[in-house]
């Protein structure tokens, strides 16, 4: 356990010091504000922008995709990097087991994506809270934020971090980028509907409807919510499982 903690700690530290990630966070925040800042124009354009829950729902389901896509690119190099920098043979020669190494990397990545996504939501909601030209109670912002963390940020972070760390350990990183682009592109261009959303959406699946529901279509299919959650968590875990099954990834134990 100590060794897993050590890897998690330093993975997190290395990622957190990465300036490019902060640049992506900043870009995502700027774009999010251009789209959702409670200005007169945006308030006139977006019917429910006065509701903090809608605001959190909107930035989580749409604008967080940019941040997640950027983080995915940065995290995808974690395992290939160890092979490239000569760290892999060094780690193989130490008393470190495959499980400790893989879990350390995955959990470090998960905590990192989770933190960045939480910072993104907090930052945007903070701006909204301060800049809104109407009165909002603090609890009206905190409640949807907490909901967002539990229903969406955790499964989404798990999916993004586990897939982006584990899959490039098994396939050409360019192929991974391509697959990720198809997936994110589909998510970005999918138009929402009153019906249950496809379960394979990342941030705009039915999980996010637990943060806010459209007053005209208040019905949320719990089966679809569960399917969305299962898809995100299951795919993440399956990616990690594939890495565990790949024998040539680590020395024979």
């Amino acid at each position, binding site marked *: 356990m100590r060794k897993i903690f*050590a890897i998690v700690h330093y993975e997190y530290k290395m990622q957190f010091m990465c300036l490019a990630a902060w640049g992506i966070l900043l870009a995502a925040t700027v774009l999010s504000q251009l789209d959702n800042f409670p200005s007169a124009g945006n308030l006139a354009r977006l019917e429910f922008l006065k509701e903090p829950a809608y605001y959190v729902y909107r930035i989580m389901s749409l604008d967080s995709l940019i941040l997640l896509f950027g983080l995915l690119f940065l995290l995808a190099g974690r395992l290939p990097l160890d092979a490239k*920098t*000569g*760290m892999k*043979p060094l780690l193989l*020669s*130490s*008393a470190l087991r495959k499980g400790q190494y893989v879990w350390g990397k995955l959990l470090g990545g998960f905590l990192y994506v989770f933190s960045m996504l939480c910072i993104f939501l907090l930052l945007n909601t903070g701006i909204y809270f301060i800049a809104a030209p109407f009165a909002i109670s603090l609890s009206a912002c905190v409640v949807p934020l907490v909901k967002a963390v539990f229903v969406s940020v955790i499964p989404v972070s798990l999916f993004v971090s586990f897939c982006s760390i584990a899959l490039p350990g098994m396939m050409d990183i360019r192929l991974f980028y391509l697959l990720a682009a198809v997936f994110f592109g589909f998510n970005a261009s999918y138009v929402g509907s009153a019906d249950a959303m496809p379960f394979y959406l990342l941030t705009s699946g039915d999980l996010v409807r637990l943060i806010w529901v459209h007053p005209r279509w208040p019905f949320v299919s719990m089966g679809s919510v569960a399917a969305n959650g299962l898809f995100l968590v299951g795919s993440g875990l399956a990616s990690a499982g594939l890495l565990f099954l790949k024998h040539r990834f680590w*020395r024979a*134990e």
Partner: protein
Amino acid sequence: MNIEIRHLTKKYRNGVTALDDISFRVGNGVFGLLGHNGAGKTTLMKALVTVLTPSAGTVRLCGFDTVKQGDEVRARVGYLPQELAMYPSLSVFDFVNYMAQLKGVRDKRAVQEVLEEVEMLEFSKRRIGQLSGGMKRRVGIAQALLGNPPILVVDEPTAGLDPEERVRLRGLLSRYAGEGRTVLLSTHIVEDVYQLCEELAVLRKGRLFYAGTSAALLEQVKGRVKILRLEQESQLIELQRKAVVLATTYESRGLTARIMDESDLYPQAEPAEATLEDAYVYCMGGKAHA
């Protein structure tokens, strides 16, 4: 014996035999592993530190089999790979501390001690990406020294370093081996082996060409190394057909060739004192035409 290699063979899936029936033993002190690029030195080192599984044969470190008792072996070995870029964004202290935790070294002072040993304590807050090549190599050695392993395996530690850094690293390795431990040093720089090792092994195309003391290797060429003065380059080409040319030096009035005159074919040549480099070049089949 601290390291015992018996009939070690490593064949890759593509059919290349990197190591072919290697057997030798290593005791305390610094042991040199010589051979040119692609001779199989790195493969042998990886097999020793359990990174590679042998196709045949056995390797025992401190009495433990590298395949069957990998954990025991890994607990007793410090390893510095040939190319180690480490994590450029971490500080020196963070990196060594990270490795200490992965190696299960719990003594908090151990990190400071090894950094002091390699004279990197004052740079411990500096990021690895900002270090020179020599400093990076010292950090690499520091992580290998963690936990005071009885066996240290270092792959080409002095390659690409300036003379001062090389002397510093040599001193470090010989000091470590002097405390009753084994240092296996892989290199293609004969000078390093000459300065550090009493015993050595020479690999050539995956096969063991020589294993024994450096004095015995030197003995094989003693009295047979000569210097021959030549006027034209065409003479050198002719000479290379008949004798092993160890080195050539171009001068303003022709050139001189350092040769191995086994059958006393060149009585006019001046005798010269044999060096370990002569013996090594002789082992490798002579120097190609410069």
